[in-house]
């Protein structure tokens, strides 16, 4: 209890907690869950975009998309490393993803159906991700905060690329415009869900905020996202698929229809449109790769043995 007060005091003073520092069990557990799920989201998040790499319309777009997916794998790597400093291995985390004990962001359980979805994912999904992540650069756990600094820099680059695709599409042929609008129609509510359930229903929030693992409430960030995104949609000449969306002079914010939370919880339970496919794909990659991982370890062991024998 004394240690706990001291720990809280350090956090309140804005100090960073480092892996070797003492920390409450709950802090460690919550961080593992949060960082792990964030890492998993980067990994699973490769799949909806990977779905269009082989169909990218130009060499330039293909290259940009490849670079983006490569960045995402890199983010996954930083985050798994950050989680490992808390005493959980990447393989353990992976197993937890594959058997459903850990989640990934609900957004990646939605399909990418046209090229405009590459724009929408960059613009809306990366946009929402940045909004979640920018404050986390100031999170109390040092390795996580530092990973976030690197990640946010790249994410905002991705968001601009996504917006650029949307701009091309929205200013293109009739079919492209229709594609752009269709993508917005499908990704709008799932993007709003990315900030998590309404504050009233949010389970872990208050303790996480005290520990500076979570910096803002879900509803705050969601509102900020809507306020930022609506003018961008107007700029693109696209309509937000919400007939009740309107500017509220009094609050200085947009009023909007909340997403269908039943759908959100269904997705979390594994009933998203692509939930089964995503995990099946990752499971297959993991299982198919077992012989490679084993082979590499066996070779390394042989080399070590040879070196030892030579000494």
């Amino acid at each position, binding site marked *: 209890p004394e240690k706990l007060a001291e720990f809280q005091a350090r956090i309140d003073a804005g100090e960073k907690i480092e892996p070797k520092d003492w920390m409450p069990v709950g802090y460690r557990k919550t961080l593992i869950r949060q960082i792990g799920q964030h890492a998993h989201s980067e*990994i699973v998040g*490769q*799949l909806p*975009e*990977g779905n269009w*790499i*082989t*169909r*990218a*319309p*130009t*060499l*330039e*777009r*293909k*290259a940009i998309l*490849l*670079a983006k*997916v*490569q960045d995402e*794998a*890199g983010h*996954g*790597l930083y985050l*798994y490393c950050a989680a490992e400093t808390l005493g959980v291995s*990447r393989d353990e985390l992976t197993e937890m993803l594959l058997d459903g004990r850990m989640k990934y962001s609900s957004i990646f359980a939605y399909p990418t159906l046209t*090229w405009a979805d590459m724009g929408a994912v960059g613009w809306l999904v990366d946009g929402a991700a940045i909004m979640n992540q920018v404050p986390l650069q100031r999170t109390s756990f040092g390795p996580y905060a530092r990973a976030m600094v690197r990640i946010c820099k790249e994410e905002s680059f991705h968001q601009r690329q996504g917006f650029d*695709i949307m701009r*091309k*599409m929205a200013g*293109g*042929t009739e*079919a*492209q415009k229709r594609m752009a609008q269709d993508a917005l129609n499908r990704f709008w509510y799932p993007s709003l869900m990315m900030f998590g359930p309404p504050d009233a229903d949010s389970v872990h929030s208050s303790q996480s905020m005290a520990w500076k693992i979570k910096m803002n409430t879900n509803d705050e960030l969601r509102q900020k996202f809507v306020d930022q995104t609506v003018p961008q949609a107007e700029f693109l000449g696209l309509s937000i698929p919400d007939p009740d969306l309107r500017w509220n002079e009094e609050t200085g914010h947009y009023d909007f229809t909340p997403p269908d939370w039943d759908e959100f919880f269904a997705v979390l339970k594994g009933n998203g449109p692509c939930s089964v496919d995503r995990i099946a*794909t*990752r499971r*297959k*990659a993991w299982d*198919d*790769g*077992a*012989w*490679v*991982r*084993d*082979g*590499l*370890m*066996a*070779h*390394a062991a*042989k080399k070590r043995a040879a070196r030892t024998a030579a000494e």
Partner: protein
Amino acid sequence: MDALFEFLCRMGDNTLVLGHRVSEWCGTGPVLEEDIALANTALDLIGQTQMWLGLAGDVEGKGRSADDLAMLRDAWDFRNVLLVEQPNGDFGQTMMRQCLFDLWHEAQLAALSTSTDPRIAAIAQKAAKEVAYHAERSADLVIRLGDGTEESHGRMQAALDLLYPYVGEMFESDAVDAAMAEAGIAPDPASLRPAYDSRLAALMAEATLTLPDSRFAHSGGRTGFRHSEHLGHLLTQMQWLQRAYPGATW
């Protein structure tokens, strides 16, 4: 048929098709580090494609861009070797294909770096740096997996047996190659083989793998006479958007 255009298509189609194949791995590699490396390799190859096919379009002088060449030719107009259009198979097969290609690619680019055509020399010099890394990595993986577990050894040997009959085509010569060699633009392909063979032999020895006895080689890719059935399927994906929405810009 302009020999220089033909030659540039061969270079660019190799990197285009192999880059596409490697990009099919997206998000499904055996280890996260390999996902990253595969994406990076694909990215390099697509970048090289932009340079080779861009120059091919310039040389042709009919206003076709690199994208036009990549996205609007049917299989029979592709000039890549059969090796690079072969399916990914397992990770070992992908790495074996990469390694067999990289060793040739590295030697080819080294020769092209002193091409009498300064545009080609410039592209080759830029690409050579990337490909040196590809070759280092693929060779390393072939060694580590060849000399790993019994299973990984068996898979790598199967991959070698499957793919070795596609090696010979990289060293075939025809009128295009003769014209290129005579002009000092590109090496005679056959001239690269001895060094390739000895490098490959050393590599496979270290990987504890056995090179097939037979030198039998499939051909028909780099001339376009007879690709494999795999290329057409690859193109249905690669060219889909450009075919479905002609004239759109992206």
